């Protein structure tokens, strides 16, 4: 084979390969919505680690009895328009008039997010501790547990998004402002550890006022603990997607919330370290319009994309597909 022939052969091979890649690209799009049950995104093979030992059985969907709340009126705090709660549920509590994203509970968000029947909670027993002997703290936690149906400020488990499995953590601002004490810090850390062992991606929806004052210095230490967990997970090659929702501030924004590979945010969410009131007192002047919103962060380079609530599920499914290890080219 002379030199010219060799070059021609290489050229042909390259062309063939390029053609194949083109095919692969064109075939990707419809697959986003394909349900491929049982397939785990981001893994080379089925995980050897047994998730069953750390997961609870899936929750039975409750039979729908009469729901008097559905007929109640919801007034949007953004534009004062009024809607039935029933209708607001259908639009995921995004105001149809002004687009304001209202707070939703962690449990409701999880229901919106995962494929029906796929969510299983992490079994992470965390004892209730009161290191400062803060007055009436235990009672407060108990009453919140009854009211919210959550054990603490965070709901964590494994679920599927369009057939792709992931560890999913949702913080609930309805539980003491989603503040991070020992229980929340421990659950978040365990979620990263389990994601690493099971070779699953992790998705976290943050909503928190910051460190939980009532647990003092131990709350501050959860920042170091969770940030270290992200670092370790990241070094193992795992994918971490954060979705910053209203509000994400203080010790949560200054630890695991801002350490993701991909950072999404909901429109209008307040995201920052110090609260606006504290900053105004410090600098002695009014803050500019829109300061510390998701849009402000995007402008200043700290958010990949702002995504409207109804689009988040699809965007997350796309990101899981983009990080599917099975689809990585072998170069």
């Amino acid at each position: 084979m002379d030199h010219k022939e060799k070059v021609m052969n290489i050229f042909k091979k390259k062309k063939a390969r390029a053609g194949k890649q083109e095919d692969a690209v064109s075939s990707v799009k419809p697959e986003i919505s394909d349900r491929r049950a049982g397939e785990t995104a981001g893994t080379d093979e089925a995980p050897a680690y047994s998730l069953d030992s750390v997961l609870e059985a899936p929750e039975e969907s409750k039979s729908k009895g009469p729901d008097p709340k559905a007929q109640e009126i919801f007034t949007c705090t953004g534009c004062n328009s009024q809607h039935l709660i029933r209708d607001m549920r259908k639009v995921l509590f995004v105001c149809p008039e002004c687009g304001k994203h209202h707070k939703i509970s962690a449990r409701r968000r999880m229901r919106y997010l995962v494929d029906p029947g796929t969510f299983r909670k992490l079994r992470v027993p965390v004892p209730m501790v009161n290191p400062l002997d803060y007055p009436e703290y235990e009672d407060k936690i108990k009453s919140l547990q009854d009211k919210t149906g959550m054990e603490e400020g965070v709901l964590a488990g494994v679920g599927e998004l369009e057939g792709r499995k992931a560890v999913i953590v949702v913080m609930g601002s309805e539980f003491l402002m989603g503040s991070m004490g020992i229980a929340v810090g421990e659950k978040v850390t365990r979620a990263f550890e389990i994601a690493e062992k099971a070779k699953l991606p992790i998705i976290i929806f943050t909503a928190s006022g910051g460190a939980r004052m009532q647990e003092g210095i131990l709350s501050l230490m959860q920042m170091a603990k969770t940030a270290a967990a992200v670092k370790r997970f990241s070094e193992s090659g795992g994918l971490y997607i954060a979705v910053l929702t209203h509000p994400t501030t203080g010790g949560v924004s200054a630890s695991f919330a801002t350490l993701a590979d991909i950072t999404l945010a909901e429109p209008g969410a307040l995201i920052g370290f110090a609260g606006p009131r504290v900053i105004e007192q410090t600098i002695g002047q009014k803050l500019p319009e829109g300061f510390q919103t998701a849009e402000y962060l995007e402008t200043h380079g700290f958010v990949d994309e702002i995504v409207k609530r109804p689009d988040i599920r699809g965007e997350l499914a796309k990101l899981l597909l983009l990080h599917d290890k099975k689809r990585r080219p072998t170069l």
Partner: protein
Amino acid sequence: MTIREIDERMIAIDEAMKSDHSEEESQALIKEYAELTTACENLSAHDKVFLARHRKRPKIDDYINALFDDFFIQRGDFLSKEDKSIFGGIARFHGIPVTVLGHRKGHNITESMEVNFGMPEPEGYRKALRMMKQAEKFGRPIITFIDTPGAYPGLEAEQHGQSNAIAANLAEMSALKTPIISIVTGEGSSGGALAIGVANRVYMLENAVYSVLSPEGFASILWKDSNRAAEACDLMKLTAQDLLRFGVIDGIIPEPAGGAHHDPDAVFKAIERMIIKEFNGFKRTSPADFARDRYEKFRNIDEKVRKEK
């Protein structure tokens, strides 16, 4: 007598002792000093906050001058700014090259204003991280001195990514393959303190305090009233003794009666002894093990409190 009155009198006697006195006068001063010292034996958390914030308390540059040789200052985050509230560089401790850094509060009002009262902005944390990464590269141990009212709550600080900068330090420090010792010398408040405090060994001076937020901030958040700071101090469990009991810190460095500023040399000596002891203990640890040990330490930082339950 309040701690403020005791302290003022002790400082006056410190000064008076420097000049000559008759035997009788000296005896009287010594006797009074001893009485004041006794009064300092049972300080409240609020008293300790007063001492921890004392203007005359030794500051980062005093510690560096006293404990290290051949100090080379490093400046800037090499991205946009030099944040003077973080001070540090490369130096030698008993001949060993180390990276040393900490919050800078200033000795007087002019200096304090120049260094923003020791409240770092994102650029300060990024400078600290730059220095610490370099320390890892060259195998230098890292020593950090913590003394800050917290991260600076300012407009630009937010705009430039205060949260991201602190978070990055926490994550990166947890994995550095070199030993880190942190000493809380004054007040350690909030993420601003922790951002240079993810260490293999964490010590506090006897009258130092370390907390999730300043007592004023704590009272403001929980009771919407920053004037209730004194009450907050007693509730927050922020003294060195509290933190040792929680298992959050590894040891307490003794101070002279009435606080470090009455005899800084004694404090320098005590810190020096501690660092020598720790360095000796580090001798058989590999770089990767420092990272692993530090990770484990913070992974289980609440274990003691949880077990007590």
